[in-house]
């Protein structure tokens, strides 16, 4: 039996958690409005439920720009492009899993997936001290993990930027269509301090996004870029450049970050081990990390059972919401959580078991494909660039 003081504090704690939830939702709503993005209500209303990726069904994706042409491609069972880059400066974690699960769902719906590994970005931003180091991480750690997600080798094209110099030829071509003022507006002066940063941010990123529309890959095609909410300006720049060179402006799908294990207002970060579950963590480490995860339940059990919890801000529940394939299972837990009918130890046990199995399965697939990696690497010469 809790003291009146403990009860009062727990009730206050509950209000704080509700406030955090409201603050997060307002943030995403404000950013959506501010950036002129559209919510996904209409898309979800029309798209058959069985075709909607989990991320759409569970509001892990929150906004879009010009997604309709992609939906049309899906409806007509025609191919479209998805590009999602990865900065290979540190090991992958479950936040990456969530993103790549989305890419995989999109591939099942008809996408040809391009994954630039931006080791040049790692270098120019000082995350590694040599290209060789970043290539090593990309080759030995990142590439096998990506393949471990289960992509179709025929429809997946991964390239390590510095190992695909064709990319830089295309980037040079695109440099005619981007001004330094535009870059400053999009990225801010602090991100454009060195020639490498200017070149990378200014045109190499554009080249990564627009490369799949070159003649070598079939010409202009509907393209989708899944991004975090803060990356919208990049997409606007890419759309502007695409129009100038006769390509189809890419569409944008905004995805929430998988929250840090330590709380909902930060994301999982590869550079902060306590915030993230890595794809090479052991079961023991995973269970320990989840046991310390931030939750949406108050400390006093009887208050929690009375008021319920706030699953929307719970780092443990987020792992289920972002990654567990069974809607009914996840919704049942959510309801029980909201009504204070599941203890946090039970929730964390369920989550830990699921995540351990997920990571184990991933490591197995990763290992099975370890000798198959080169088949995913893009080496297509871009002869068309030299004749533009």
């Amino acid at each position, binding site marked *: 039996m809790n003291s009146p003081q403990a009860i009062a504090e727990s009730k206050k704690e509950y209000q704080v958690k509700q406030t955090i939830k409201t603050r997060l939702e307002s943030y995403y709503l404000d950013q959506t409005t501010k950036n002129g993005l559209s919510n996904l*209500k209409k898309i979800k*209303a*029309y798209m058959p439920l069985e075709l909607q990726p989990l991320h759409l069904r569970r509001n892990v994706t929150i906004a879009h720009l010009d997604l*309709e*042409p992609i*939906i049309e491609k*899906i*409806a*007509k069972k025609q191919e479209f492009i998805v590009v999602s880059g990865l900065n290979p400066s540190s090991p992958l974690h479950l936040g990456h899993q969530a993103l790549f699960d989305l890419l995989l769902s999109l591939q099942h719906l008809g996408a040809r997936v391009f994954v630039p590994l931006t080791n040049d970005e790692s270098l120019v931003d000082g995350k590694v001290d040599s290209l060789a180091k970043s290539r090593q991480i990309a080759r030995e750690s990142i590439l096998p993990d990506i393949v471990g997600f289960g992509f179709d080798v025929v429809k997946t094209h991964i390239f390590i930027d510095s190992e695909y110099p064709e990319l830089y030829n295309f980037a040079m071509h695109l440099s005619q269509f981007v001004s330094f003022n535009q870059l400053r507006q999009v990225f801010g002066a602090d991100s454009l301090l060195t020639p490498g940063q200017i070149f990378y941010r200014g045109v190499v990123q554009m080249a990564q996004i627009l490369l799949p529309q070159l003649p070598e890959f079939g010409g202009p095609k509907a393209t989708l870029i899944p991004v975090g909410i803060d990356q919208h300006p990049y997409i606007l720049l890419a759309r502007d450049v695409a129009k100038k060179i006769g390509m189809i402006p890419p569409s944008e799908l905004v995805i929430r970050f998988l929250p840090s294990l330590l709380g909902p207002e930060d994301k999982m970060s590869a550079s902060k081990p306590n915030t993230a579950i890595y794809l090479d963590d052991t079961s023991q480490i995973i269970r320990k990390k989840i046991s310390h995860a931030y939750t949406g339940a108050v400390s006093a059990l009887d208050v929690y059972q009375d008021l319920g919890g706030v699953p929307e801000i719970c780092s443990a529940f987020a792992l289920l919401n972002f990654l567990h394939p069974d809607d009914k299972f996840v919704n049942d837990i959510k309801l029980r959580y909201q009504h204070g009918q599941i203890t946090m130890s039970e929730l964390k046990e369920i989550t830990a078991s699921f995540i351990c199995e997920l990571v184990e399965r991933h490591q197995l697939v990763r290992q099975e494909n370890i000798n198959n990696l080169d088949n995913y690497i893009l080496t297509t010469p871009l002869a068309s660039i030299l004749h533009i």
Partner: protein
Amino acid sequence: MFGWIVQLVRMLVPKTGDIGSSPIPPTMTDYNLIINELKKSLVHRRCFYGETYDTFGITVDSLKYYLFLSLLHQNLARPGVSCESVVIIADVATGINQSSQKFATAISQISQDRLNYCQKLKKYYHLPINFVLMSDFFTANPILQRVESFKKVGRHNPQVIELLSKTVLQNKIKQEIESGFHYGFEEIATGSFFDIKIGPPREQYYDQAAAIISRELRVNQLSSIYLSPTYPLGQDFSYFLTHPEIEEFGLTPYKAGSNQLQDFRIIIGRDNHLAQLFQDTYLTTNPTLPNPILDLLFITDMAQKIKNNDPAFPVYNADIYSDVDSLKRLTLEKTTALLVELNNL
């Protein structure tokens, strides 16, 4: 029965308007409210519906308006109260829209064929409405003077011009401006000879312009009823996402070639490949989203009501939306039967 009377439902019954939330569907009581509202406010009940046409033929969607107008007439007509309902086949207006003499000649023949067919419809279904060519209507009524009065007032009113601009396709706007929106003024001047108009939702812009001018000229003001938009059949789930203007206003119901979608419409007298069209039509169970199949069911049920001399409007339970396959099966059966009748007139 969601959305079959759009404008008046908005006046009488609030719609929630949110994607995914169920609207409050009009019931028989609401239809009665609408009829009573019209009866209360109108001494004369001159109802009309006007349509132009193209060369592809008469669509089954035109029947929605003919039949609805007929049911409306039956509900409004009372001994001792003047009630007249007219369908104006706008041969003059259709001719305005094209410039070649060859087309003008073809249009003239089409208008006569259309009128003849409509007379057969009237006879078969004992419709209480009259069909008349616009050119004949112009002869019998002082339309041209009214058009000039409307132009005098409307041309200098930016709000009127903006409203009329919204009725025009973007690729025709230059032509309309050059003509001084003659087509638009003719349309709204014609409407001023009536009390009640039924039409597709896009007519609201004409009617709003008409209301401004009518107030200034102190002539009759229309009450308008807008029926559900006409949607193309045979489309996948992405169609209305990539064609939001069609989601909002639908196609032109009386022009089979509207938006070059004649292959996705039902045209009287041709092989419409109904079964395939229905199969290819994506439907959701969401009642707030377009449902061209339910639209067809409404048309077939109105036809049946009229044949049975039953003046009640068709109504449906909310669960009509919940089983897409059953809805398609039922509507296919009824539409097939209706088309046999229509083709054999």
